[in-house]
């Protein structure tokens, strides 16, 4: 069953088109990896889905809700946005404790204190940081901060989890922990996950499907095995073999 359908998306802040997608359908409970050269529009793609960036045209069907993206605002935008969670490449840690950082999205939703405590503790336990709940978030290492950002996302129990190069600044150990937690979230909640990554091995390890975005366009999409073993386009072949110059 499709979770997310995008149609005729055009992001054009000025004269240059930075993202142009004609049609894209993503199925529920899958992990999608989005790969492509730097500046190809991958992060823009996630921000459009997360309603952080408004395209000049385009429609999104989000779990059966038909949305006209350029005209979506106010409470309509908020309701859809609250069904998703986003983890950025460089996690923002608010100037408070780890617990409060993770609780923030729940507080925005007006959830009661007891439920917040329970869910935040569960989320922190999942990312292995329950013991750091009272610690000032800005004193965490990069890997720990990224795990807090992941806990902050998973505590919301989103239908769609968007990860924008979440492990690009992490050491191998933290990459491994992050990937394991991501798998756990997927298995436990059947969450649909989109992850932008520069690490092709990570895409292979995590994703059931891969998308290749180049120069703002979706060039190829396939299940992970086919994507890596039998790429159809010359661009993807060049990218996978490291020959693409950008």
């Amino acid at each position, binding site marked *: 069953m499709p979770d997310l359908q995008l149609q005729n998306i055009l992001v054009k802040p000025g004269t240059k088109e930075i993202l142009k997608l004609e049609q894209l359908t993503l199925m529920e409970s899958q992990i999608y990896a989005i790969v492509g050269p730097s500046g190809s529009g991958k992060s823009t793609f996630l921000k459009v889905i997360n309603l*952080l960036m408004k395209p000049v045209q385009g429609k999104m069907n989000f779990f059966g809700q038909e949305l006209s993206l350029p005209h979506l605002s106010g409470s309509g935008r908020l309701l859809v946005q609250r069904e998703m969670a986003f983890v950025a490449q460089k996690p923002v840690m608010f*100037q408070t404790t780890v617990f409060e950082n993770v609780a923030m999205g729940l507080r925005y939703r007006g959830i009661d204190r007891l439920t917040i405590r329970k869910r935040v503790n569960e989320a922190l336990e999942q990312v292995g940081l329950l013991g750091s709940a009272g610690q000032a978030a800005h004193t965490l290492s990069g890997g720990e901060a990224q795990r807090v950002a992941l806990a902050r996302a998973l505590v919301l129990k989103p239908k769609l989890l968007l990860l924008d190069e979440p492990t690009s600044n992490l050491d191998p150990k933290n990459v491994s922990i992050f990937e394991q937690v991501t798998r756990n979230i997927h298995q436990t909640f059947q969450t649909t996950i989109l992850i932008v990554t520069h690490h092709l091995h990570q895409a292979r390890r995590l994703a059931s499907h891969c998308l290749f975005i180049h120069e703002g366009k979706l060039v190829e999409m396939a299940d992970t095995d086919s994507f890596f073993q039998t790429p159809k386009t010359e661009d993807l072949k060049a990218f996978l073999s490291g020959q693409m110059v950008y």
Partner: protein
Amino acid sequence: MPFSQDVISVILLSLQVSTVAIVIGVLIGIPFGSFLGLYAFPGKRLLTVVIYTLMGLPPVLIGVIVYLLLSKHGPLGSLQWLFTPQAMMVAQSILVTPIIIGLSMSAVQAKEQTYLETIRSLGATPAQTIWTIIKESRKGIWAGVATAYGRAISEVGAVMLVGGNIEGHTRVMTTAIILETRMGNFDAALQLGAVLLIISFILNNLLVMGILADFRSRRRKES
């Protein structure tokens, strides 16, 4: 004169006038400054320039404008506030509000775009977004409030014009210093000046301690 009943009432009135002015400035300036720092809209650049200009507004000019507004035949003359502490509060509010707006705006703008995106992606309403950004920018905003308080309590031109330096009624520290200097009582003037400095030091110290205590309590809150 130091620490006589008169001096104490002068000090208390100074604190009262400036504190009320700051509270008004904070209530208007922080939300408005944060909004300006966060959102883009037509005319924002012009408005920003106007606010920066108003931050340097001479107190004596504010005094003249408030005087004209509150004078018997002025548009607000019916309030009968001229030569009262209320008039001094109005004048100082006009003085400090642009400072708080401008410095709040700068503090908010100093936060990276990723802060805003993270807050929005967590499902914050616009009001929750502004409140979170204010909390995140609080050090810069408090510095702005401290600057504004220092400007208010040390200004003399506006309060002299609209308050009139009436003994026991509208005399504050700065106008008392001028009076004592004119009368040749330099010791008294310097002592009042020292009191002014000490008050400023204590208030700024409280602000800094408040920020630290706030942070410590947040650390303890859920541990």
